[in-house]
């Protein structure tokens, strides 16, 4: 399921409708993330977070427009208001769940990474690394760190 909603998609709809679409897609995204967070997988989560960041960028633009043009919210029909209220309640529930799941995942990751950091710091360094100082002279005082972290993952 592709939940990517672009600025163009939103602009093509009536403005109250785009507001509803906006909220619906947010809910869909958080629902997907909530599911993924039950067993965090680095590859899938990474993709989702990138999507999340892009989508939210689009949302911000929409909200900025809302701030400028009061007519959009002033002219909401009763139907649109009801729909928005319903979606707001759903969003409230899902965002709360998302916050909890992210907090849990972070706590677990923190525990693991803290051990890694601690053991890495405690591990003895190896031989000295040859290097040059700003006086142009060779120095070999810097000791290599025991292990490294691959950030390309």
């Amino acid at each position: 399921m592709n939940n990517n909603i672009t600025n163009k998609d939103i602009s093509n709809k009536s403005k109250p409708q785009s507001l509803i679409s906006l909220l619906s897609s947010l809910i869909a995204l958080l629902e997907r993330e909530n599911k993924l967070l039950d067993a965090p997988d680095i590859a899938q989560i990474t993709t989702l977070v990138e999507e999340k960041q892009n989508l939210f960028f689009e949302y911000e633009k929409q909200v900025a427009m809302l701030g400028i043009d009061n007519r959009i919210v002033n002219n909401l029909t009763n139907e649109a208001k009801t729909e928005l209220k319903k979606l707001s309640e759903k969003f409230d529930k899902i965002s709360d769940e998302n916050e909890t799941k992210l907090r849990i995942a972070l706590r677990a990751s923190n525990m693991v990474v803290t051990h890694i950091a601690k053991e890495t710091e405690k591990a003895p360094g190896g031989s000295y690394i040859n290097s040059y100082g700003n006086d142009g002279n060779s120095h070999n005082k810097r000791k290599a760190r025991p292990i490294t972290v691959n950030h390309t993952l």
Partner: protein
Amino acid sequence: MSLFSALNTAMSSITALNTTTRVISDNISNANNENYNARKTKLNNNIHGGVNVANILRKVNDGIFKDLANSISSTESNKVMDSIYRRIEQLIGTSRGKTPLIKKMNALNLAWKSFEATPSSGASEKGVIQAAVNLTKEIQRISNGLDQIYGDLEKNIIDSVATLNKSLNKFHKLNIQITNNAATNLPTANLENLRDEQIKIISKLIKVKQIKNNDGSVYLHTTTGLSLASPNPAIFKWDSANKALTKSGSGSLDLIADNSVTMGRISSYAQLFRIDSKATTDPDGRLAPIQKMRNKLDEFTFILMDDSVARATGSKFLKPGDNLVTDHGLTIGDIISITVAGGATTAITIDATTKVSDLLTSINAITNISARIDSHGNLQILTSGENMTIGETNGTPLTKLGFSIGKYDADKPPGFSYAYNEEHVAGNADLRGVSDLTTLAGVTAGDTFDISVAGGATTTVTINAGDSIDDLLIKLNNIEGVRAKLDNNGFLNISTVKGKLNITNNTNTPLSSTGLGIAAVSGNISIINKAKPGEQNRGFFQVKNGTVNNNASRLNIQVNKEILNGKKHIKDSSISKVVVAMSSSNRSISGSGITVTNRNYTSIISSIVVDLTKKSENFGKIFAQEKAIKDMLYKRLRNETGVDIDEEVALLSVIQNSYSASARVIETINKMFDALSAATR
């Protein structure tokens, strides 16, 4: 919680967590060193370092295993709480979305209202009686259910202690085998796995700390350092009589109260049985939830039965046998003073041997004053007079017992039982500011009248020359069971809730004189609200035989037997007053971790139930979160290769980014809703 406050809470949490994770990420060696970021292999021994990565991984896995053990303890602890609260909720009915206790209290309220509308209807009267029976039955049903849960929990803790002892024994044997194998270079991996399994079982029961020794053994101890398996496996015992956990080799009389054993199932079960002051007064839902629920039901029952005029309650947890000086910090020579309705003050002096029970006896000896230890363990002083003032003539004894010093005025309007029981005489002359009663028409010095309550001894009241209205009120409030006041119009009102009021002129007719204006028929003073023949004059609710009203509880409350058996009718004249009493919002209970003030009876019951529901939800949530963390840690360890350092750090970073993104979108949504709410305002 409103949407906006929920979002704000989430945002605060995100900010706090971001800071934490950033600090940890920054601590990873070379995490920001670009020279190393481009490496394609997942994990490298630094080419310059030659460090043993496997060794680091093993230690990381050991560390995570310790976290897992802690997480198991925490999860199990919260699992127990969650399951107990679920059971209590099932009993109360909140888990089914039905709360019969609230419904039955409400039904009683409505039945009285219906009876007020049709007082001559036999069906309406029966409706009241049935509603009251239903309420008392529901209180007793819950009480029995709580006893059942309590009994089951006791069985659970006994079983858990047996499992703990068995598992410590197995752990000890495995430790010996591993040490022997290691010493002779035999493989230990399988044995270590078996030992890990035992550590997990033990962690379910209590929280442990583990230290790996060079000989391959693991030293297991409690969080406070009590050895669990060295040199021999510890033997724990649950003392059912004293509700205490003890351990061989430890002098502690209760490892739970000492905080020597924390978390895990056993700790949670044992916390439930605590009856000490900390446990029963602390709002913490882990401590004595069943006892607290019983206390709340008891106190609710008491306020239904309470027919006092005013009351003061301390906040210090007391037991009748406690010595006030040595146990509660009062000083020898401290003096408590109690005054009823501006009359003479009674002083009670504390000496070296004064016990709480002695103080109760002394207070109960004061006219129109009684005292009790309430269901929450606090001293309560009640008056039947118009008001009371409690003070401290020497030292601060009442302050130390948690009282507010000062005057306590009558309930307005009075409570349920007062409203039912009360009967009175009323004047029609404004007596405010009268400084000499003998100046009133028809009243002369030396006039007397007689008064008795519930067929007791008759007291003759004399109006002396120069007696003011205040003097008369003091004299009347000094008669046991009599309350006297000037009502809002300044008319004299003499009442009792203790039984039949008998009041007659003696020397001359001062009461029925124009000056005092109390109505009389054929020379007999008219008693208002008295029971008609065939009506029950007092005690719509009563305690079972052999119990005094001040000890009313969930176990002994019942609808008056005479009414229930159809021998007596409900007192007609009380109906409207009872209806007012039931709907007025000036009832309060405080103790056992809850304070509810200025509510009606139904609302008090609702508050007790809501408090329970909130605690239950909270434990449900904590349990779910702890379990999720435990499962995540377990998944990492279950993997044969253990933790993948690169992936773990990357995952942390991604989750952190997701959190930031959530914070941003929540802020965005907030703005959107702000705009919407402004538009729809």
